[in-house]
């Protein structure tokens, strides 16, 4: 089912892309945790409160962001993280059949004593392992950031509230005291395992989709175009579903609805480490238990891969152009 020579070839072929994405994700996660430590929580809260009207567009309620864990958890929805994941998944998924057909290299590879399924599975092993390692590296970047970052916080000064008014009068004129501590004292790196798992599930879905479309096509540019079109279309559906109450049903039809790492991280904080891995419970407005959402993405990816194998086994392979 898996051909080690092919696996080696695909690994070598994708190494540069993987290394670039891995470096970007790992260093970004680390740096982002450090940036979180630079922002004063009070100031951050004041800024965010200005945007309360737009809270429904955020992946998670603003209140969850007023903690270090919540702010670090935002990493999983950062454009650079999504971009690196999407680039890896679409580029690798679209390469397997239409990419090799377009380059003309499939001809000689498939003339060897391997089945089409073996080729597809060997490619999938490298792509999925690459995706998993990217998600783990992002998590590792967060973990190292948490372990090495020191946070300095301003301690609240003693004050006196004047009765019947909202005025608070400080009881001392001394400069405010600050306190420094390691972020790991407030934030547990294990909390973000669920976010990394969600990111993997999200990527796996895209990888399967790209692979399926690649197995049907002979031009890689068309495969990439098709995947990106579906991606944008689903994103627009998700955005519209959030924007207008009457279009809320659109949100349920978008796979972005199943990517909810911040909510799962918030559940770890509020309900314990096992909360996001349950089939029941979770948020009040959710249809399913928290683990069901990433599982939908994983099952979707498996279905796409299965279709890709069936289509690839049955189709004629055109001669290179």
């Amino acid at each position, binding site marked *: 089912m898996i*051909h080690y*020579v*092919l696996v080696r*070839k695909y690994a*070598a*072929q994708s190494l540069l892309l993987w290394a670039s994405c891995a470096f970007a994700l790992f260093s970004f996660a680390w740096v982002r945790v450090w940036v979180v430590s630079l922002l004063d929580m009070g100031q951050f809260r004041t800024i965010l409160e200005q945007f309360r009207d737009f809270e429904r567009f955020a992946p998670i309620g603003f209140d969850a962001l007023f903690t270090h864990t919540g702010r670090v958890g935002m990493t999983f929805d950062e454009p650079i993280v999504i971009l690196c994941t999407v680039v890896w998944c679409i580029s690798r998924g679209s390469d397997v059949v239409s990419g090799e057909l377009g*380059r*003309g*290299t499939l*001809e*000689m*590879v*498939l*003339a*060897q*004593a*391997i*089945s089409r399924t073996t080729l597809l599975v060997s490619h999938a092993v490298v792509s999925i392992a690459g995706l998993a390692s990217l998600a783990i590296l992002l998590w590792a970047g967060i973990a190292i950031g948490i372990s090495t970052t020191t946070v300095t916080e301003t301690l609240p000064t003693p004050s006196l509230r004047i009765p019947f008014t909202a005025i608070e009068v400080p009881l001392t004129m001394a400069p405010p005291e600050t306190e420094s501590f390691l972020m790991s004292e407030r934030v547990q790196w294990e909390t973000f395992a669920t976010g990394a798992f969600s990111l993997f599930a999200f990527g796996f879905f895209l990888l399967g989709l790209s692979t399926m479309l690649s197995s049907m096509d002979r031009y890689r540019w068309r495969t990439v175009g098709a995947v990106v079109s579906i991606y944008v279309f689903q994103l627009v559906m998700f955005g519209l579903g959030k924007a207008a109450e009457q279009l809320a049903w659109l949100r349920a039809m978008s796979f972005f609805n199943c990517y909810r790492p911040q909510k799962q991280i918030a559940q770890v904080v509020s309900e314990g480490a096992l909360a996001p891995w349950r089939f029941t419970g979770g948020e009040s407005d959710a249809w399913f238990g928290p683990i069901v959402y990433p599982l939908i993405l994983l099952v979707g990816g498996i279905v796409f891969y299965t279709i890709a194998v069936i289509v690839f086994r*049955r189709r*004629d*392979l055109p*001669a*290179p152009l």
Partner: protein
Amino acid sequence: MLRAFPHFEETAFLLNIPVSPTSAINDEVQAKLRVYRDDTATAAVKAVGLSKRYGSFDALADLNLSIPAGEVFGLLGPNGAGKTTFIRTLLGFLFPTSGRVLVMGLDPVIDPVRVRKMVSYLPGDARLPREMRGTGVLRFFADMQAQGDLKRSLHIAERLDLDLKRFVGFMSTGMRQKLAIAAVMGSHAPLLILDEPTANLDPTVRGDVLAMVDEARSEGRTVIFSSHVLSEIEDVCNSVAFLRRGRLALQQTLDSLKQRHRIVARIDASQPIEVPHGLRLMVEAISRDGDRVTIDTASDLAPLLSWLQALDLKQMRVEAFGLRAVYDSIHRGGEKDGDKHRQAGEAIE
């Protein structure tokens, strides 16, 4: 007993033998199936009623072809004749619309992996991974091939004077072709399929490649050699098949082709030309244009000499009927001409 023959019902259907699972197998059916079975056993490739249709276009149309094992078999035909489609069907890249093909007794539709274990294939436009160096490409294919041999591939590369340290992306078209040849010819697979192997090569390397094809034959391997260069086919092939519009126009051994001649002469316009009964199979075509007559022989010239002498021909010229002439007549002629050649070829065989 014969019902144990693989795909008995399908084979019988393809051979137009009316049998059903319950019908008795009479002597005629048995005889036909035995011929087919024996032929399949000795043939490296056997196509029966093979068709491949794309919409209204027939890339292959009812192709019946048998390629004997241990020979270098030439595939000839103009562009779009179906040569590459046929080759790609052998490898299981394309699925036939109807009919069947067996490669070393195996059906590439049913068991493509086992078929490809016995085949080493050089595509017409061999594209190799550009990110690999020459040595890496040879190692990759030697590891991938069921009967790959890196040492042999490296030896061939050296023989072809190829710089293996270069990345494929920086190689010229000819160098890439040489690299692909080294990767393919290094394998010990019993069937080599070479689709225009000498394209983009200089004359010296072409000679080396043809010599390697000859060596493969002497090792007992079968080679399917598709080319547009007729002189190469004449040099290395034992037999040749001409395809035209997806059909077999003519299949002939090169030995018998070399026996064929064209006689051009002048003759009295009123004199009739009648071929004696015993020589009819030896004369393929006679055409007259005023006092000019052209006689195409189908085999050895010697038995015809006394008849030709009796015709009182003048200014007689005898030309060897080379591959070029056959190719031109098939290429320029229509279906009818192709059929005529096929019949003539069958008669000679």
